[in-house]
């Protein structure tokens, strides 16, 4: 089947999509956007978090067909004309990136958190990011990155 969707502000088309494919597969393998990651493919780790019509979702749990005529924003679409989004810059500066596999999903999740709550408390941060697993950092520098971005 053919899927028509908007990705990072651009109208895109994916052809020959098998109906069992996820939005994640279409983004990664058909549209050349491998930023969203494939770590568990059952919605447990948050590595594939993208915006779907402005709401963060696990792209692995969205069937490709469900994205028809909808608006998707991935980590690749976050930087503005002046460079990195403040959340991305904060992850870099705070040392919140080690292997980096969880990073794209976390960056989108934090981007969403700060849009909803510009000055989150420590429990707010932890509650908001509980769906994003990181195996490298122990989360210490991720919390620091969120606070840094919130102050930016």
């Amino acid at each position, binding site marked *: 089947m053919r899927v028509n969707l908007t990705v990072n502000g651009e109208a895109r088309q994916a052809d020959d999509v*098998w109906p*069992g*494919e996820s939005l994640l597969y279409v983004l*990664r*393998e058909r549209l050349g*956007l*491998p*930023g*969203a*990651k*494939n*770590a*568990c*493919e*059952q919605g*447990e*780790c948050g*590595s594939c978090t993208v915006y779907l019509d402005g709401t963060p979702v696990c792209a692995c749990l969205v069937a490709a067909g469900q994205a028809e005529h909808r608006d998707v924003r*991935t*980590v*690749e679409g*976050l*930087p503005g004309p002046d460079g*990195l989004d403040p959340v*991305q*810059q904060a*992850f*870099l*500066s705070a*040392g919140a*990136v*080690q*292997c*980096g*596999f*969880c*990073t*794209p999903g976390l*960056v989108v999740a934090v981007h969403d958190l700060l849009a909803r709550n510009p000055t989150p408390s*420590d*429990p707010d*941060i*932890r*509650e908001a*990011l*509980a*769906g*994003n*697993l*990181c*195996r*490298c*950092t*122990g*989360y*210490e*520098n*991720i*919390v620091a990155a969120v606070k840094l971005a919130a102050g930016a």
Partner: protein
Amino acid sequence: MSTTTVGAGAGIGTSPLRPDGTLKVTGEFAFSSDLWADRMLWGATLRSPHPRARIVGIDLTGAVATTGVHAVLTAEDVPGKKLYGLEHADQPVLAMGQVRYAGEPVAIVAADHPETARRAAAAIVVEYEVLPPITDPVAAIDAEETVHDRGNLLRHVPIRKGSLEATAPVVVTGEYEVGMQDQAFLGPESGLAIPAEDGGVDLFIATQWLHGDLGQVADCLGLPPSKVRLSLAGVGGAFGGREDVSMQVHACMLALHTGRPVKMVYSREESFHGHVHRHPARMWYEHGADLDGRLVYVKARIVLDGGAYASTSMAVVANATTLGVGPYKVPNVVVDGYAVYTNNPPCGAMRGFGAVQACFAYESQMDKLAAALGLDPVDVRVRNALEPGDTMPTGQVVHGPAPVADLLDRVRAAAPPAQRGDDLRELPGGVANTTHGEGVRRGVGYGIGIKNVGFSEGFDDYSTARVRLEVVGGEPAAVVHTAAAEVGQGLVTIQAQIVRTELGVEQVTVATADTTVGSAGSSSASRQTYVTGGAVKAACEAVRAAVLRRAGRDDVTLRGGRLVTEGGEVVADLVDVLGDRPIEETVEWRHKPTHPLDPRTGQGDAHVQYAFAAHRATVDVDVELGLVRVVEIATAQDVGRALHPQSVRGQIAGGTAQGLGLAVMEEIQVVDGLIRNPSFTDYLIPTILDVPPMRIDVLELGDPSAPYGLRGVGEPPTISSTPAIVAAIRAATGLALNRVPVRPEHLTGT
């Protein structure tokens, strides 16, 4: 991973940004599962559903007939050696006549869509004669039925020090158990194999050890190593789980067979079956002490379940045994460690590598000893703390700083965390709203551990670095090239920092790690900054010597792109000395040699360097529901010299969190040889709600025999956070808790 150029930045001891960081935060960094090639096919693996069975027949018809399938291969198609393994080649590339664990690869398929490949693999009909699996490692030691012809005992390591007959007035005993932990790196096993015109293959792979893979892959493909070229693709975490080969040979076989690029990416369920795990352990300990709490003897027996294949079990059991009494002075030691074959999932390297299991037992024993004597748990540890010049149970003398007592004092003296507030989210159970404080008890516990850094027992442990200095665009610039795997720890940053420090140039490029340069050894054993850092430093020194020879000076250093005397006088610009003739040096660098253990007494200088970390854990336990919330963890660790302080703290926080996982949640549940929870829904790793704020105290005491004085950082924080948390839960509940992970039912008795 792409070649990365670091702009203006700093040398060692500062924390410049990661050169791969921008790509990682924008999603552009190419992990091994992100690779793509024109005409690429997808590989899939058919695995055994049985832990032990004879293969009666394999019918490939259904798979071969599937539209879109390009290859279906079995053991008969393995072109070279049929067996591989890191220390002992006992693992079939594809099963030959029998399977020894559930998940063992039996056949592989290449197709034009990953789902087609998976369905074709599922269409293969394997007829098995199912046999009862051997699953109890203790019984397996002497069992008549064996997993392999050689018997079930992989290795017995005995340690004998002092008197075997020592007695003491105070004796505490315990039996302890550690469950099977998974590395749970987020990036699944994956890679891309591309057939080459010369009949060889190029493999882009996420691994910890390019040359470790190279030897095994070339052997199994029946190709000379020169025709198998490996390049490091982006690695999504490792923690030991990528030290062994997984899909490397399979992807290359499919690529060579089809003449097309083949990509393989494991699903999470397959990943749980596709790599080795941390050894489950059963341990029996007896500690004897005098009435002041000074240890007189330790006797222990440690049994590690190696599962179906050897992997690194022989080295893991040596670590568990040689480090088996912890960082304490013990005059009399009798320890026996056993690694055993069973039909359980194979076990091998995971962060801490044998030291984790033993630490849970000996630290539990130290708490028990303190309780028996009415002493403070930290006091009894400090009273027995190892000091420089003391001997380990192996007879090896501990050289350089060994701040065991100091680390304990530091975590004890750290300010305690705040008392519990009213926010529901800071209670055990959190927003599940299971308590408003009733039934909640706070406990505090301590742990300290010891880890060897680097490969041991006489292994020729070295790394190779190539450093090139040249003029680019009118500026001096350096390229550093090694085969060392960046797995997230930040080695790419460190390499550039070392070059900047040694050669005084700003512009440093870290070339992609690949096998066109000599081996760097494995990114494991907390060794890579030490050994590859040492090699890069040595290569820079060789380059600098060549610069000085060319300049005809022996009294200058390189600083800011200039040759400068000690007095600060600039004698030449590096650009002028180099001209259009680059200087390149390749150096193999070794740490001081280690020696084998005596096979009867376990005596010998087997280890390179010891590293220490101590933890204090504070927990709140809902004793009615068995829910644990770790409130805070304080860590103190001596890192010798922090080359990149921010990354050092990142390693300590991350390692501590993995120890927390083992303490309260992480276990691969194996029943009758079958993994019952191969998913992130059922195998829980700590979320940001489970990991508390950390207080991290980094000491830099300097090891005079190591490059820059550094001490390996990665593993020590993983080792003692587990016993510290369990000690805290014991303090809150009064329960014995001899097994990790501690589960709610262990606390409620239900």
